[in-house]
């Protein structure tokens, strides 16, 4: 048995360490550790509640808008107001565009190199690559043989230059790379195209939100971009870019994932990277002005044990967090505490004397959230499965169409490949939805050009906001006392996925998903990266809690 450290896990947001126990080439145990702590929630205490959205936004610059969004909903909930229709639609548009952009960057620039061997692309036949592209799309994006030959030539020049920059020391040639050279060339070419295309998403967010990363248009009560909303040129700018993004999703992203899916289908069918099999979605994108949580684009729900025949209703009061294996202290660490009521003290115990994490002790800055005491996976796969199991027509069509295209059963989704495919299908789902929201916005503004709901800030109040970040379910809870933030809590997607074990020793989602995986070469953790990246880690988000100990406060739990 050998213990391996993989730190840093690169191509993610934040600082993550993975350690695995190997039996030969097979992973028999795994530990996931968040290695950085900031204490944003402690910093929020005593501040004006209206500053919480912009400050919590800085928890993450990758899913740069979601904390801003959720915090705004949370403060509005505490005050007891709803934004006007136009503001609700603008928020959906920004959140949705951000999801599309973020998923594109994730697939091509963060996750792509786990599936694509750039060096292999050098031996591709561009003509065959063009044919390959046409197998998965009628009008593939930028995939004619001439163009691909030019890309190949440039890649060759780059490799010959010897200065590989970020591509140096990659795991090129590892047998776990299975795409043919032509497939590698095609996706590598789209990797470059996506660098350009993702900027369109940033521009949409900037038009509606001033700048991106870290948009600046939401305020408690509404949005500020009213002058742009009333300017048809600006709305046109948004619509044009949203459509272009959607086009890239349909003509590049989806076909590339289908291509990968066809080659890596066996891994999916074998359940590589399956993980826990429990899936949780809070739901997101309110479609009605009364913010009815049964009318969301992405429905909420819980799936247990991979059973798609039953979706359990989501009840936020069932969320608890354990710190048994986290660098915090509870009076009684054998039980979890409701995340909105918990007491948290830093109790850093360092790495072990051998430089490894202390797996049977405390080993991460992440807490271990549990739902009804069970570990959960959140993220695109969870959302797609919940929507699929609930029979959302667009999702049913996308999932069933993809499965029949590849000739595989739905069980293929419970895997690393399934996570990656679900993210692509979800991107398509949202990208197809966005243009309709622009129409809805224009129609709404014609009858009601309000973008702000006036309010008086209460002296005492509690509130919460729930939504879905690109990486999964996100919730903020706050308590206002004396007109100031008395307490603030975030329960974020990567805490669900990357968190450590709980008191009962149940592994977190990352840890569980790695167990059983075979490494082609134990010195090259390619398969580990592939599975971890399939969750799209965002560690800065995940490490959040710090509250000086004190009497636990009575929180309204929803």
């Amino acid at each position, binding site marked *: 048995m050998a213990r391996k*450290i*993989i730190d*840093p896990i*690169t*191509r993610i*947001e*934040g*600082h993550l360490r993975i350690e695995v126990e190997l039996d030969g080439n097979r992973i028999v145990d795994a530990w996931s550790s968040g*290695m950085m702590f*900031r*204490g944003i929630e*402690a*910093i929020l205490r*005593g*501040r*004006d509640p*209206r*500053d919480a959205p912009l*400050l919590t936004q*800085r928890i993450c*610059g*990758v899913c740069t808008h979601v904390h801003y969004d959720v915090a705004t909903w949370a403060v509005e909930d505490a005050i007891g107001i709803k934004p006007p229709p136009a503001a609700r639609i603008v928020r959906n548009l920004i959140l949705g565009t951000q999801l599309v952009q973020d998923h594109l960057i994730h697939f091509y620039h963060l996750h792509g190199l786990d599936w694509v061997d*750039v060096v292999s692309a050098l031996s591709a036949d561009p003509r065959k690559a063009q044919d390959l592209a046409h197998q998965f799309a009628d009008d593939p994006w930028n995939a004619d043989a001439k163009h691909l030959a030019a890309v190949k030539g440039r890649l060759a020049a780059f490799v010959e*230059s010897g*200065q590989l*920059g*970020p*591509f*140096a*020391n*990659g*795991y090129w040639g590892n047998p776990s790379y299975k795409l043919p050279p032509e497939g590698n060339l095609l996706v590598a070419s789209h990797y470059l195209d996506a660098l350009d295309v993702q*900027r369109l998403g940033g*521009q949409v967010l*900037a*038009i509606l939100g*001033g*700048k*991106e*990363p*870290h948009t*600046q*248009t939401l*305020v408690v*009560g*509404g949005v*500020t*971009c*009213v*002058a*742009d909303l009333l300017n048809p040129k600006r709305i046109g700018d948004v619509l044009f870019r949203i459509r272009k993004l959607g086009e890239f999703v349909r003509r590049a992203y989806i076909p590339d994932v289908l291509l990968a899916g066809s080659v890596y289908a066996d891994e999916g069918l074998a359940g590589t990277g399956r993980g826990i099999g429990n899936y949780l979605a809070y739901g997101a994108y309110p479609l009605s002005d009364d913010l009815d949580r049964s009318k969301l684009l992405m429905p909420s729900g819980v799936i247990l044990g991979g059973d798609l025949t039953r979706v359990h209703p989501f009840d936020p009061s069932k969320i608890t967090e354990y710190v048994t294996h986290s660098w915090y202290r509870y009076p009684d660490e054998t039980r979890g505490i409701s995340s909105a009521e918990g007491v948290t003290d830093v109790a*850093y115990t360092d790495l072990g004397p051998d*430089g490894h994490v202390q797996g049977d002790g405390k080993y991460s800055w992440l807490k271990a959230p549990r739902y009804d005491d069970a570990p959960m996976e959140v993220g695109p796969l969870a959302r797609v499965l919940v929507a699929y199991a609930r029979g959302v027509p667009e999702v049913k069509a996308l999932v069933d169409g993809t499965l029949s295209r590849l000739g595989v059963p739905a069980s293929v989704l419970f895997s690393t490949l399934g996570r990656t495919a679900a993210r692509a299908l979800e991107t398509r789902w949202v990208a197809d939805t966005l243009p309709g929201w622009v129409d809805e916005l224009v129609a709404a503004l014609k009858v009601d*050009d309000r973008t*702000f709901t006036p309010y008086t800030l209460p002296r005492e109040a509690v509130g919460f906001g729930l939504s879905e970040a690109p990486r999964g379910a996100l919730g903020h809870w706050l308590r206002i006392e004396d007109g*100031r933030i008395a307490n603030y809590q975030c329960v974020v997607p990567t805490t669900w996925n990357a968190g450590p074990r709980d008191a009962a020793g149940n592994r977190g989602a990352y840890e569980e998903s790695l167990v059983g995986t075979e490494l082609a070469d134990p010195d090259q*953790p390619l398969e580990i*990266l592939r599975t971890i990246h399939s969750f799209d880690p965002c560690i*800065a988000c995940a490490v959040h809690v*710090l509250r000086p100990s004190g009497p636990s406060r009575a929180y309204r739990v929803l």
Partner: protein
Amino acid sequence: MPKRPPLRAPRSQRTAPPLDRVERRLDRLDRRFGASGLPLDELLARNGVSRREFLKWSSFMTAALCLPPAFERAVARAAALAPRVPVVWLHLQECTGCTESALRSAYPGIAELILEYLSFDYHETIMAPAGHAAEKSLEDTLSKHRGEYLCVMEGSIPTAMDGKYLRLGPAGETGLSLARRVAADAKAVIAIGHCASWGGPQSAAPNPTGARPVHEALGIRTIRIPGCPYNSVSLVGTILNFLLVGDLPALADGRPAWAYAKRIHDTCPRRAHFDAGEFVEQWGDEGAKRGFCLYKMGCKGPYTWNNCNEMGWNEAASFPIRAGHGCIGCSENAFWDQMAPLEKPLADGGVDIPFVRGVEGTVDAVGWALVGGAAAGIAAHAAYSGLVKGTRGSGENREE
């Protein structure tokens, strides 16, 4: 809120460095790095940027950097070299927003190409290898290009608990130790974004992790490019400037003067409304629809030195004030504490609102008048750096 120290103007722009020295320096860089990496011509051609556009851009950058026109050729040479100089980009206590910003250059075309194709020998967000192999990329660069690589640091450095709030790499090195090691042999250290420049949100009161900006934590000089995030054109210009002169640029409060010498307030397209006393009084009101001044909604433009208005964001798609939200002062030291609450004007902001004296208590309690005082234009720039040192981490939110 402590009283502002007396105002002083930043030093005037530097005089240009001797052109022959610049050319000699570029010759040397060319000999060292010219054969490696991707040729810029190639990048430009692939992206459909013509030679003519490139020269136009060079002359834009030359002007932006406050260099005389004779430097255009040198700027073009520096741009061509930029993708070949090895860069080590460290992620410390941060949110990766600054990396994302590098991917969304404000000035279309060339700047973003240079950023995207900088030779990121170590950059955790984009590099292919992980773990030990990533470590090897870092160590290879540190030894092979000792004293020659550029170091970009994103994020603040936690100094409490012996720096153990951040551990990196297979050996679990603290962020503090790694940053010190990488900085030691770097040609220059660029502190990118608010966290590295000023400490970021995690350094706001009560600063639980002892987060410090890079220059404070390491006791070194850095080129600071603040902003949350910074505008990527400021990074490109700073790198070009560095390649040209091999030294820190003219600084205003530790920041490149060429990018940070103007106040948001002075370049604001809504400035006429300020002067005319036309203000947004409530989000979404008639004034908001008509693009009135955001001062009374908490805009911190009068105290903020940055180029958002001029350069725009996301290929000049917009900037916060255009989107109807006030500036929050994100390029200024300790703005999370000093400029809060963000939706309220500073009580002692040193700005007098024309025509509306007495309308709002927090606003008219101000001191001197802006109008007619040229020195006032320089205002908080120097002021913040002075007053913040005494208040960081004091834990007190300012009352109105």
